């Protein structure tokens, strides 16, 4: 990130980051809090903090991990404030650490998958979305009322575009591009 980001670039970056991560972070926070409203409050708090400390953005190497980390600490603080922390920590202690990391990986995987769909042309995308939902080429052809050959072709196109796109781009900084 540049040292002197003009204010409207800051806003734009903030907005893109927000829209890109908000649902994923809420889902992640829900895993700690078990409550969607509380999760949204926590995530919104995190973004307010993020905005107010924007002079520190240039020091952040991996915004994705940074955001998840911030949400995690906020969730702990929230639970402590609710005097539930001890109880919560007890149940967390039974979880191996790997579970927490994996919840982060899971949310990131979905976010990246969703972003990758955004760059596909519409025809391709409907085919690819169904393919990701686990439908076979024949079923997709039936659903969309097109030839099975077309389905295969669209899948190839999707693969090619994704390959071109993600060969070049760093997945974690998609919102910045």
């Amino acid at each position, binding site marked *: 990130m540049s040292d002197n980001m003009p204010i409207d670039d800051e806003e734009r970056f903030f*907005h893109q980051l927000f829209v890109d991560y908000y649902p994923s972070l809420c*889902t992640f926070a829900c895993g700690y809090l078990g409550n969607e409203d509380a999760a949204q409050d926590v*995530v919104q708090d995190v973004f307010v903090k993020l905005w107010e400390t924007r002079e520190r953005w240039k020091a952040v190497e991996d915004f994705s991990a940074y955001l998840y*980390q911030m949400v995690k600490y906020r969730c702990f603080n929230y639970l402590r404030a609710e005097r539930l922390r001890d109880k919560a920590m007890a149940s967390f202690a039974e979880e191996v650490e790997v579970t927490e*990391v994996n919840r982060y*990986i899971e949310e*990131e995987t979905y976010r990246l*998958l969703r972003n990758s769909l955004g760059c596909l042309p519409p025809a391709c995308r409907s085919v690819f*979305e169904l393919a990701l939902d686990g439908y076979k080429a024949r079923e997709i052809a039936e659903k969309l009322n097109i030839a099975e050959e077309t389905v295969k072709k669209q899948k190839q196109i999707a693969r090619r575009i994704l390959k071109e796109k993600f060969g070049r781009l760093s997945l974690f900084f998609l919102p910045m591009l």
Partner: protein
Amino acid sequence: MAQFEDYSHIATLLVHAKQGELAEEERRALEAWRKAARENEALYRKVLAADFVPAHAEMHSHFDAEAAYCAVRALCRRRARRRVAYWISGVAAVCLLAVGLAGYWMALPEEQAPQMLAEAIIPPGEAKAELILADGASVFLGTGVQDSVFEQPGARVHTSGKHLNYVKGARTAEMQYNILRIPRGGEYTVVLQDGTAVQLNSASELRYPVQFVGDERRVYLSGEAYFEVAKDSRHPFIVETGNTEIEVLGTSFNISAYAEERRTETTLVEGAVRFSAGGGEVTLAPGEQGVWDAAGRLDKREVDVYPYIAWTEGKFVFRKRSLEEVMRIVSRWYNVDVVFESEEPRGISFSGNIRRYEDFSQVVRMLEMTGGLEFRIVERTIYIAAK
């Protein structure tokens, strides 16, 4: 304590696995990770399972990011203002003169609502078109209009609320033309006799033969349209706009050729097209855009395609567009007039996404976030001034 960033590459590997695009070394790395813990293997299976995407999409649908963003920005602004107020009141303690000023600041309302004089809701555009037949008769099409089927020389025409479909009939020797005219605040899709689908944006017009005859398929466009051209290598498909020509063999692309924009942009999604104007020509590859500008320059550049075709999916996606351009685009869809009361706002650079099917107040809310702007709506005219 595990650091999330140490695992971010695993998400990338899982995405590639899900897309069926794992390179050999990636597959090895992923395998090592899967073997490292039982939970990892479980997550791998979960990601690859059919319901992974739908289940997450369902969860995400509970969280409205744009609405939350508005709330967060409002909160940030409020907190910033409060800080200014504290600071000023501190100064005021030693400077009597400042007391009045501090009072003024403190008295500022917490959240300034967009300045909308008229409460009337300006609805978004909808499916709407006028079809002018070969004999000059016209038919109105759109949401709420009954579906119909009728004959034109060389094709049978099916109409429905949102699109129009030509089914090839008996061969004709001579070409008969139909014109599809989309008013401001409208959009409509036509499937031509060869299977080519053309989605037309507001304030646009397409003239095309009912049945293509001869060795080329030629149509005439003003305004903006997204083409998905049916493949037929023996009959090139040509789109003519005022002074440019786009020749294709079978592909998807967007053309924006509004007279008021004084430029024609062709953005290629897939396939290949030849874009010619003013005696020159460029060949476009997917992800490239050809531009013919007011000065008569023909140029091509690489672009992110999505902002140019997002309208076909019901979104406005702006990337560093001037407010003036943004307002021209928006005004065609909402059928409103825009008046800039001062000059500075015209050049403000705007990026953001807006859903096309929201009413106009949502657009104003979005634009308000750029700050420093005042929107006044009187009937169907939007007045914009610097605050």
